[in-house]
C-alpha cells in the first residue's frame, strides 16, 4: 500500500457540496478525491491492515455519503459530519465481523509493506511500521482519537464532536493512547526524538 505523498487536494466548498446534493457526479468525484485517502487510511488502521475490508467499507461510506448528503444541513463542518459517518461505519463493520471471525483475526500490518515506494528511508519505514502495529493493538476507544488526530489532523473539539463525547474524554483517551505507544515502542526513542 502506498503512503501518501503531500500534494494539493481539491478544495471542497459549499458550492461543491450543493452540487453533490443536486446529484452532480463530477462534484461528487471532487469530494471523493478530496477525502478518499483519509477515509481509506482510517478504515485500514481500523481493520488492522486488511485492505480488502478497508476498500469495502470505504465504498459503503462514499455510497452512503451520496445518498445522505441531502441531509447535511451545514450545522457542523462538513468534515465533522463525514468523519462521524466514517467512525460509525468502521465500528458497525467491526461489530459485524466480530460475529463471524475468531477474536483477533486480521491481516498482519506487515502485509501492507510490499508496495511502498522504495525511495522512503528504511529507518523511517521501520518506525512507521512499528507505530502501525502498535496502533493496531490499541482498543478502538483509544485508537480512533489517535487516527482522527494524526491521520485527519482534527482538533480536540472536532474529535469530540465526531465521537460524540467531551473534549476531556478525548484528552484522556489520547493520553492513554500516547502512553501505550510510548511503552510499547520505547526502544525507538532515539529514532524519533
Amino acid at each position: 500500500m502506498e503512503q501518501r505523498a503531500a500534494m494539493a487536494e481539491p478544495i471542497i466548498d459549499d458550492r461543491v457540496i450543493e452540487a453533490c446534493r443536486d446529484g452532480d457526479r463530477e462534484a461528487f468525484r471532487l469530494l471523493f478525491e478530496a477525502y478518499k485517502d483519509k477515509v481509506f487510511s482510517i478504515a485500514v488502521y481500523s481493520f488492522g491492515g486488511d485492505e480488502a475490508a478497508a476498500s469495502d467499507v470505504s465504498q459503503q461510506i462514499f455510497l452512503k455519503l451520496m445518498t445522505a448528503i441531502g441531509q447535511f444541513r451545514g450545522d457542523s463542518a462538513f468534515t465533522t459530519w463525514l468523519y462521524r459517518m466514517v467512525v460509525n461505519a468502521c465500528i458497525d463493520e467491526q461489530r459485524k465481523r466480530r460475529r463471524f471471525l475468531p477474536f483477533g483475526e486480521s491481516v498482519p500490518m506487515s502485509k501492507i509493506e510490499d508496495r511502498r515506494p522504495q525511495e522512503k528511508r528504511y529507518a523511517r519505514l521501520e518506525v512507521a511500521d512499528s507505530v502501525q502495529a502498535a496502533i493496531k493493538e490499541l482498543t478502538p476507544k483509544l485508537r480512533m482519537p489517535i487516527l482522527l488526530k494524526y491521520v485527519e489532523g482534527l482538533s480536540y473539539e472536532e474529535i469530540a464532536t465526531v465521537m460524540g463525547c467531551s473534549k476531556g474524554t478525548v484528552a484522556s483517551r489520547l493520553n492513554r493512547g500516547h502512553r501505550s505507544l510510548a511503552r510499547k515502542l520505547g526502544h525507538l526513542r532515539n529514532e524519533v526524538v
Partner: protein
Amino acid sequence: MFSKHVTKNLSAYCHGEVAAEESRRIAEHLIACNRCRGQFEEIKLGVKLAERLPQLAAPDSLWLDLESRLAADSNQSRVESSKQLRFSFKLWQPGFAGVAAGLLLSAVLGAWLFYSRESRPFWEVARLNGSPRIGSSRMDEKGRLAVGEWLETDGSSRAKIEVGSIGHVEIDPNTRVRLMETKPTEHRLELARGKMSARIWAPPRLFFVDTPSAVAADLGCAYTLEVDDSGASLLHVTSGWVELQLKDRESMVPAGAACATKPGIGPGTPYFEDASEKFRQALSKLDFGYVVDVPDLQRPLEVVIAESRSRDTLTLWHLLYRVEGKDRELVFDRMATLSPPPKDVTREGVLQLDDKMLHLWKGYLENSWSNQSGLKKTWIKIWTGALGKVQGLEGKK
C-alpha cells in the same frame, strides 16, 4: 508547594489545546514535579511516535468500483423511476467549466497564500538596535518570525526573540537565524552564522539550535552560541547544562564550561574555561588535529593529562569514550588520582566502557564540575538528573 498535578492535561498541552494561562501553569509545574515530568516525557514520546503514522493512499480501483456500484444503483433507480440519485452534467458545459476552473484556481492560490502567510506558527521578535530583517522586510519595533522564515541582523542591529512561553533568545549583530519548528514538544532554531544568547526556562530537550556542525539541546540553562563563516561553532554555558550532538558524537557541557564544534567532526571535548592555556590548546589539537602557533604539541593527550585539575575530570570523562587502548588507561589513571572512583567502579569496567560504572562515577564527579552550591546544585539535579536520562553519553560506546 506543588500546584495540582497536571498529568491529565499533558497530551492537550503537547498539542497546544490548553489556554495560555493553563499552558504556563503546566510548564511551571513540570519544572518542579518529577512525577508529572516523567509522564510528560512518556507522552511526548507517544506524540512523536504517533506523528510518524502515515496517511495511506486509497487504491485506484476504489473509484472504479464505486462508479460501477453507482451505475448499478442508477439503472435500478431508473427502472424504479426513482429520482433519488439525479446526476446533472449541465453545469459542466465548456463555458461554465472555464469559469469554474478559473475560480477554483483562484481559490487554491488564495488558500495557499493565506496558509503560507498567516497560519504558520510564529515567535514574537522585538528590535533591540538597528534594523533587523525578517525575510526581505525590515522589521519595526515588533515583528513575527514564522516557521521557515529567516531573521537577519547587520553590523549594527540586534533583536530579541520570545521562544513561546519558555524563554528568550538575543540575536547579536551579523547573525542569521531561522525558525525551524515551534510546538509544545519541540522548539527549534537554525543558527547559520553569528552569535545568539539563549535563556530557557523549561523542561530539558524542548529547545534545540541547529548549527552547521552540531545540534545544541537545551537541558534547562543559559548559554551563548557562536557560528563562524566556516560553520564551526563555540558554545559557552553560563547556567545549567547543554548537550551538543552530531550523529553519535555527543558532549555534555555544564555551566562554566565551553565546547567547540567543527563541520564534519561535530562537537569537541568540553572543557572548563578556567583551564590552563596549554590544556585548552592541547585539547583543540586532540579534537580537531590542529592548533594555531603551538609547534611543540607532539603528544597532546599527555599535555591534557598533565595539566588537568580535579574539575577537569569533565574533559577526561568525555575522553574515556574518545580514546582507546593505552590512551584510555592513561586517562583513567589520571582521573583515579584526581578523584578516586567509588567502590563499585572498577578499572576493568571503566576501560571496557561499562555504562553503569561510568555513570555511577560521573554522579560523584559532577560535584566538582559544578560551581554552584547547595540549593542550586539540587535544582540542577532536578533538571538534569531526575529527567535523567539526559541522553548525552549514556549508552554510548
